[in-house]
């Protein structure tokens, strides 16, 4: 919640202050060397100014709280908030020091605007790809108007999670998942009860509340009748993220992992909103799982687990993933595996899962676009490399298709391919 260790409260000189002190010293030396008082009089204010501004600063320790949030659409990320301080007159002299995550592009310094009890600030960043990034808790410092001295402040600050998922992930909520428990095989499950959509009419019981009595039907039939409602029971889905290192290298792996995390959070939110039960598992050397559940708390659990995922340093064997998954999730649950399928070892996990009775759908973020953006080539070489890469990718996807359907995800800002695929339940089934 708060920023953790107490920050140092002493005065900190900025590089500009050292520039002024350096220039003042040079001018004094010039004055001595040339026996010229002009240089001394020019240098005097430069030497005095840093000490003078330190005297006008707020007394230590002073407190400044930060409340901030992120919004914006598509690639635009607008982080705005307010720095609040008890000394309102100091509000416009407070500065925010933020460590911007590498996935977000833009200036490190915000735009400031005066506010009644502090200062408003706005960062305008962009996110070229879908991302889930954590902006660490910021530091607030008082900075003098000349930009020569700073003094850190204490106060409550929280880190900020910036999420940019493909917007059409929400359409996944319309996908009707099939519940596999407790009966073997896939069965559409529903429940007749007091809520949901209208199902039928039955004889009223003494325990039925008046609102469930169908008064018109009762009048026509001459006996008390009550409404029955049908509620679809939730479906289940497990989101499995393969974080093992591949031959693509750390940079491409990290970028694909960032995109995959954003997509998974969007998918999880869509299913949770549709009252489905969602589980999450990340596989590096071992499996780390969040068991099936629904509701808002589950979203937070999954978000924390997703944010904790990092590219693994040691890859675990594929079979271990399937075996470990069985400890948390019973066979038969639909598994949405997110994997680049760049290596045979990463593709191997699919047959292991299907053999253990998990219907698998693979969402495979394509590394082709990321690689070409990172390694600029001549147009001619670029075309040739792209052709070879496409052939290689088609081959790896085709091999995996023998065991499970694969959605080749190349445009990271849309999950239309996955939505279209999941909306056709017959195609989802795996023999």
């Amino acid at each position, binding site marked *: 919640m708060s920023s953790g260790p107490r920050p140092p409260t002493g005065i900190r000189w900025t590089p500009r202050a050292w520039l002024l002190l350096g220039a003042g010293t040079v001018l004094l030396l010039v004055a001595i060397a040339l026996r010229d008082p002009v240089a001394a009089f020019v240098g005097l204010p430069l030497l005095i100014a840093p000490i003078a501004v330190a*005297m006008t600063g707020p007394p230590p320790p002073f407190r400044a709280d930060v409340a901030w949030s992120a919004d914006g659409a598509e690639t635009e990320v607008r982080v705005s908030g307010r720095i609040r301080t008890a000394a309102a007159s100091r509000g416009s002299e407070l500065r925010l020091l933020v460590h911007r995550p590498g996935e977000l592009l833009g200036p490190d310094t915000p735009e400031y605007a005066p506010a009644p009890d502090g200062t408003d600030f706005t960062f305008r960043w962009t996110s070229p790809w879908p991302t889930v990034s954590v902006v660490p808790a910021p530091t607030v410092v008082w900075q003098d108007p000349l930009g020569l001295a700073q003094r850190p402040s204490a106060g409550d600050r929280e880190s900020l999670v910036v999420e940019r998922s493909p917007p059409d992930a929400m359409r996944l909520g319309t996908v009707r998942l099939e519940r596999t428990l407790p009966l073997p095989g896939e069965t559409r499950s529903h429940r007749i009860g007091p809520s949901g959509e209208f199902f039928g009419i039955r004889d009223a019981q003494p325990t039925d509340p008046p609102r469930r009595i169908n008064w018109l039907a009762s009048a026509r039939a001459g006996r008390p009748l009550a409404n029955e409602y049908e509620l679809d029971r939730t479906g289940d889905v497990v989101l499995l993220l393969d974080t093992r290192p591949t031959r693509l290298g750390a940079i491409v792996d990290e970028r694909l992992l960032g995109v995959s995390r954003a997509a998974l959070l969007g998918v999880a939110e869509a299913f949770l909103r549709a009252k489905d039960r969602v589980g999450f598992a990340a596989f590096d050397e071992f499996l780390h799982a969040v068991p099936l559940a629904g509701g808002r708390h589950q979203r937070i659990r999954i978000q924390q687990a997703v944010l904790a995922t990092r590219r693994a340093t040691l890859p675990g064997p594929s079979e271990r993933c399937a075996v470990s998954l069985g400890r948390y999730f019973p066979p038969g649950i639909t598994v949405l595996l997110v994997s680049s399928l760049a290596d045979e070892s990463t593709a191997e996990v699919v047959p292991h899962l299907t053999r253990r009775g998990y219907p698998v759908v693979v969402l495979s973020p394509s590394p082709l676009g990321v690689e070409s953006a990172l390694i600029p080539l001549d147009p001619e070489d670029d075309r040739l490399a792209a052709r070879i890469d496409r052939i290689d990718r088609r081959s790896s996807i085709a091999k995996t298709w023998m065991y499970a359907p694969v959605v080749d995800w190349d445009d990271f800002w849309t999950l239309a391919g996955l939505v279209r695929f999941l909306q056709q339940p017959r195609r989802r089934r795996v023999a």
Partner: protein
Amino acid sequence: MNVPAPLRGAPLGAVLGAALALLALGTAFPWYIGLALALGSVAVATWIRAQFTDGRRELGVVLVLAALVVLASRAAATAGPILLGGIASLAFLLWLADDPHEVPGGVRRAAPSVLVAAFVVGVGWASALLLPSRNAVVGIAAGLFVFAIVVLAVFFGRPDLLDRSRPETPKAERG
């Protein structure tokens, strides 16, 4: 009225340019070289400061400081250039305070600091040129002596500025 950020630093840029130009006219440089040096450095520095928001903007500060050092080292040691040198240096501080990327009103907020520097320069100049000895060294010494007294007075008035110990109670910390 909202002034566009690049234009916000311009008025005090003009003041700084004028102060440097007047100082340049009292140097051993030919007038056109002195003016070019003074006005060119300020114009480029103001543009750099308006253009960049990262560490590159300090290049503008370096440029003006370099112009100040060069002009001051070639200035004649008479009453006029001495006063103009001090004024140019103070104008530079005001120009620093009028940053287009910061919250407006920087000059007003920086006034106490700049006034302290102006007071010291004023006392120094007056001591150097108005006392019977008419010695610049005496003036500088007088300026520094006055500044030391001001610093002591401020620290006696606000001992909390020097206090680095942890507060005894959370309430004190909230201050």
